[in-house]
C-alpha cells in the first residue's frame, strides 16, 4: 500500500472508530425517519375541534337571506365544532357576553353583511364578520371561515335571483391546470421535494465532512505531529489522504443511513398507514351523519381524488430521471466536497486552535449558504437565468444543479459544462489550498490573516 493509502486508511479508521460516528450511524436514520414521519403522524393525530358559536346578525333584518342553510354551511368536521344557537342577536350584547369569558370562539356575522347584495362592485361595507377568541385561531381557521362566509353570500344571491340549483352546482366547479411535461403528468411539489432534498443533502455533507477535515488538520497542527508526518510524506499527500479518508467514512455513513432509514421508514409508515385508515373511516362516519344525502358521491369522490393524487405523485417520482439524478449526486457530491474540503483544510492549516477557525471558515461556507437561501427562487423557475447561472458557478453548482435536475430541462451541454467547470475549479482550488496548507501547517504561533494566506500561496517550495 502506498503512503497515501496508509494515510487514507488511518483517517478513515480514526473516524469510523469513534463513538460519535457509531452513534450517529444509528441515530442519523432515526432522526431522518423522524423528520419524514413525525410531521405526517402529528398532522394525522386527532385533536379537539375548535368550538365556534356562530351568531348571524344579518339574519334578523335581511330579507334576501332565508335560503341559506346555516347547518349545511357551518357543518361540524374534525377541526370545527359549530354551535348555531345564537342566531340573530345584537352586536353589543354578543361582544359584552363573550369578550372575556368564553372558552370558545364566536363568529359574529355583521348585520349589514348582505349590504353587498345591492351593488355588483361590492364597494358597500358588506361581507364582513368578526371572530372573537381568547387565543389566536390561526390562519387556517380564518381562511376556512372566510371561504364558508363567501359561500353564504353566494347562496344568498343565487337564491335572490332565483338561479336554479343545478346551475349553482355547475358554477361551483373549479378549473385545474394539469402540468404535463413531455407527455407525462408532473407534480411540481414532488419534484421540488426531491430536488431540495438532494440539494440539502449535498449541502449538509459538504459542511459536515469539510468541517471534519478542518478539525483534523487543526489537531495535527496543534499536536505538532504534522512535522513528523511531512518528513515522511509530502504535505499534499497528507492533505489529499485526509480528504479522501474522511470522504470514505462519510460515504460509508451515508450508505448505513440509507439502509437503516429505508428499514425504519418502511416499518413506521406501514404502522402509520393502519392508523390513517382508522381516521378516514372516522371522518367518513362523521360526514355521513352530517349530510346523509351526499354520502355516496362524496365519499367516492374523496376516494378517487386520493388515488389520483397518489398515482400522479408516484408517476412524477418515476418520471424523475433517477439514473441521472443519482449519477449527478455522486459526481457533484464528490467534486463539490473535494473542492470545499481542500478549502477547509487550508483554513485549518492557517490557525493554531479550533477556536480560531471561525473567522476563516465563515467565508468558505457563505457561497453554500447563499445557494441554499436561493433554493426557493430557483425552484420557482428551475430553468430561469438565476438557476442556470447558479448551476454553472462551481461554488454553488453542486447544490443548484441537484435542485434543477428533477424538473428536467437541464441540457446535456449544461450538465457537462457545469461538471467540467466544477472539476477544473476543484483542481485549481486544491492547488491553491495545498499551497496555503503546506506553509500553514508548519507556521506556529503566527495567526494567519487573509493577506498572510495570500502570501503563502506564492512561497517557493
Amino acid at each position, binding site marked *: 500500500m502506498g503512503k497515501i493509502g*496508509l494515510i487514507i486508511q488511518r483517517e478513515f479508521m480514526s473516524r469510523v472508530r469513534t463513538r460519535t460516528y457509531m452513534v450517529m450511524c444509528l441515530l442519523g436514520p432515526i432522526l431522518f425517519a423522524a423528520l419524514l414521519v413525525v410531521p405526517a403522524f402529528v398532522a394525522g393525530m386527532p385533536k379537539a375541534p375548535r368550538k365556534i358559536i356562530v351568531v348571524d346578525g344579518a339574519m334578523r333584518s335581511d330579507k334576501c337571506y332565508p335560503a341559506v342553510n346555516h347547518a349545511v354551511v357551518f357543518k361540524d368536521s374534525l377541526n370545527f365544532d359549530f354551535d348555531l344557537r345564537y342566531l340573530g342577536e345584537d352586536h353589543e350584547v354578543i361582544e359584552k357576553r363573550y369578550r372575556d369569558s368564553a372558552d370558545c370562539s364566536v363568529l359574529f356575522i355583521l348585520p349589514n353583511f348582505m349590504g353587498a347584495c345591492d351593488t355588483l362592485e361590492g364597494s358597500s361595507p358588506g361581507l364582513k364578520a368578526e371572530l372573537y377568541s381568547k387565543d389566536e385561531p390561526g390562519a387556517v381557521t380564518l381562511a376556512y371561515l372566510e371561504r364558508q362566509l363567501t359561500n353564504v353570500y353566494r347562496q344568498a344571491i343565487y337564491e335572490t335571483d332565483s338561479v336554479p340549483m343545478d346551475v349553482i352546482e355547475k358554477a361551483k366547479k373549479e378549473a385545474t391546470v394539469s402540468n404535463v411535461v413531455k407527455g407525462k403528468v408532473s407534480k411540481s411539489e414532488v419534484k421540488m421535494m426531491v430536488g431540495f432534498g438532494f440539494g440539502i443533502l449535498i449541502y449538509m455533507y459538504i459542511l459536515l465532512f469539510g468541517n471534519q477535515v478542518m478539525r483534523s488538520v487543526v489537531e*495535527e497542527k496543534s*499536536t505538532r505531529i504534522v512535522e513528523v508526518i511531512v518528513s515522511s510524506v509530502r504535505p499534499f499527500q497528507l492533505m489529499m489522504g485526509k480528504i479522501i479518508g474522511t470522504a470514505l467514512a462519510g460515504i460509508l455513513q451515508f450508505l448505513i443511513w440509507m439502509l437503516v432509514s429505508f428499514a425504519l421508514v418502511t416499518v413506521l409508515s406501514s404502522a402509520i398507514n393502519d392508523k390513517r385508515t382508522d381516521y378516514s373511516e372516522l371522518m367518513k362516519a362523521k360526514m355521513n351523519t352530517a349530510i346523509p344525502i351526499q354520502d355516496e358521491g362524496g365519499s367516492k369522490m374523496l376516494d378517487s381524488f386520493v388515488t389520483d393524487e397518489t398515482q400522479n405523485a408516484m408517476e412524477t417520482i418515476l418520471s424523475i430521471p433517477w439514473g441521472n439524478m443519482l449519477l449527478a449526486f455522486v459526481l457533484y457530491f464528490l467534486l463539490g466536497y473535494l473542492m470545499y474540503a481542500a478549502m477547509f483544510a487550508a483554513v485549518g492549516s492557517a490557525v493554531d486552535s479550533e477556536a480560531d477557525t471561525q473567522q476563516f471558515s465563515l467565508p468558505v461556507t457563505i457561497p453554500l449558504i447563499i445557494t441554499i437561501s436561493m433554493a426557493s427562487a430557483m425552484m420557482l423557475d428551475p430553468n430561469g437565468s438565476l438557476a442556470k447561472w447558479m448551476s454553472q458557478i462551481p461554488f454553488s453548482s453542486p447544490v443548484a444543479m441537484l435542485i434543477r435536475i428533477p424538473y428536467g430541462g437541464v441540457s446535456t451541454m449544461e450538465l457537462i459544462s457545469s461538471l467540467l467547470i466544477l472539476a477544473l475549479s476543484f483542481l485549481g482550488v486544491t492547488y491553491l489550498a495545498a499551497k496555503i496548507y503546506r506553509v500553514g501547517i508548519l507556521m506556529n504561533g503566527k495567526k494567519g490573516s487573509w493577506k498572510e494566506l495570500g502570501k503563502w500561496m506564492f512561497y517557493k517550495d
Partner: protein
Amino acid sequence: MLVGLLTFVSAMANLISVKNVSKRFSTHTALDQVSLDIPEGSIFGLLGPNGAGKTTLIRIINQITGPDSGQVLFEDRLLERQHVEQIGYLPEERGLYKKMRVGEQALYLAQLKGLSKQEAKRRLHEWFERFEMGGWWKKKVEELSKGMQQKVQFIVTVLHEPRLLILDEPFSGFDPINAQLIKDELLRLRKNGATIMLSTHNMGSVEELCDNIALIDKSQKILDGSVAEIKRSHFTGTYDLSFKGTLIGFTNAMWTGGELVESKEENGRCHVRVRLRDNVTPNHLLQAVIPHVEVYAFTEVLPTMNDIFIATVQRKEVGTVLGTQSHFTE
C-alpha cells in the same frame, strides 16, 4: 588492506553536504549561503541561538521545505524524495495523535517511513522490551506522561534504522535517567553506523556526544569543525595552577609574563587561573614561579563549548568570556 583503506575512505566521506543554501521568507532571511558537511558515522551538533535558522536548515534536509538557492547532497548525490526513508526526524515540538493507541500509532508512522507492517511490529516489540514499555501497546497516547510520550516518539524516530538521524533537542523533557538512556542509545546507534545530527542548546551534551559542530547565528554559519579542533583553536593560553604559598608571592614571581584571571585561597593552598602573554610558554611560567611557591598541579584550560558559543555569538574573544564566570566556586 584494500578493505581497510575503503573503510577509512568511507569513514571520512560526508553523508550530508549542504552547499550554499539560502532561504528567504517574505520579511526575513532564514539562511544565508550556509554550507556544512556532516561526516558519515559521526554525531554532528547544529548549534545556534534561538531564531538563528537551525529549524529551517533541518526542514530543508528533511525536504519539508526547499531552499531558494544552493543544494543539499546525500552521499554526494542531490537529495531526493526517496531519501526520506533513510532519515529519521525528531522535531523539537513533539506530538502524537492523542486519541490513537501507542502501538497502532507507532506502526503507522513506521510504515510511513517505508517499513512493512510485520517488520515494524517485530522491531517495535524489541524496542518496547528494551525500554521496558511492554504494557504500553494498547494504551492511548493521552494516557501516557510527557516523558513516556517522548520515549515512544524517540523509538518511532529510530525504528526504521535511518542512516541519518536528525534530533532537535532530544533530551528536553527527560529526567536524568532517561536522558542517559537516550544518550547511550545514540552512542550505540553511531557505533552501528548511523549518522546523527543533533540540534541542542545543552552544551554539556555537545561536549559529551558531538564529534563535529556548526554554529549558525543570524542565518549565517559562523563556526564549524570538529569539537576537538575548535576547542584547540579557541585556546587562549589559560592555565590552572594549584600551589602552596602566598598569592602575592605568586603574582610577583609571574610579573608581566601573564595575567591573573581568577584566584582562590583554601586551607593554605592557592588555586589560580592565569592567561599567559603571547610569547610566554608554560615552561617560562613554571620556571619563574617554582622558586617562590610549591606547585602541585598545573593544567591547561581549554574553553568549554559553552564559552565558545557565547563568545562567538557575541563576537567577543573567548578569553573575555572565560573570566565572566567563576570556575573555582562550583
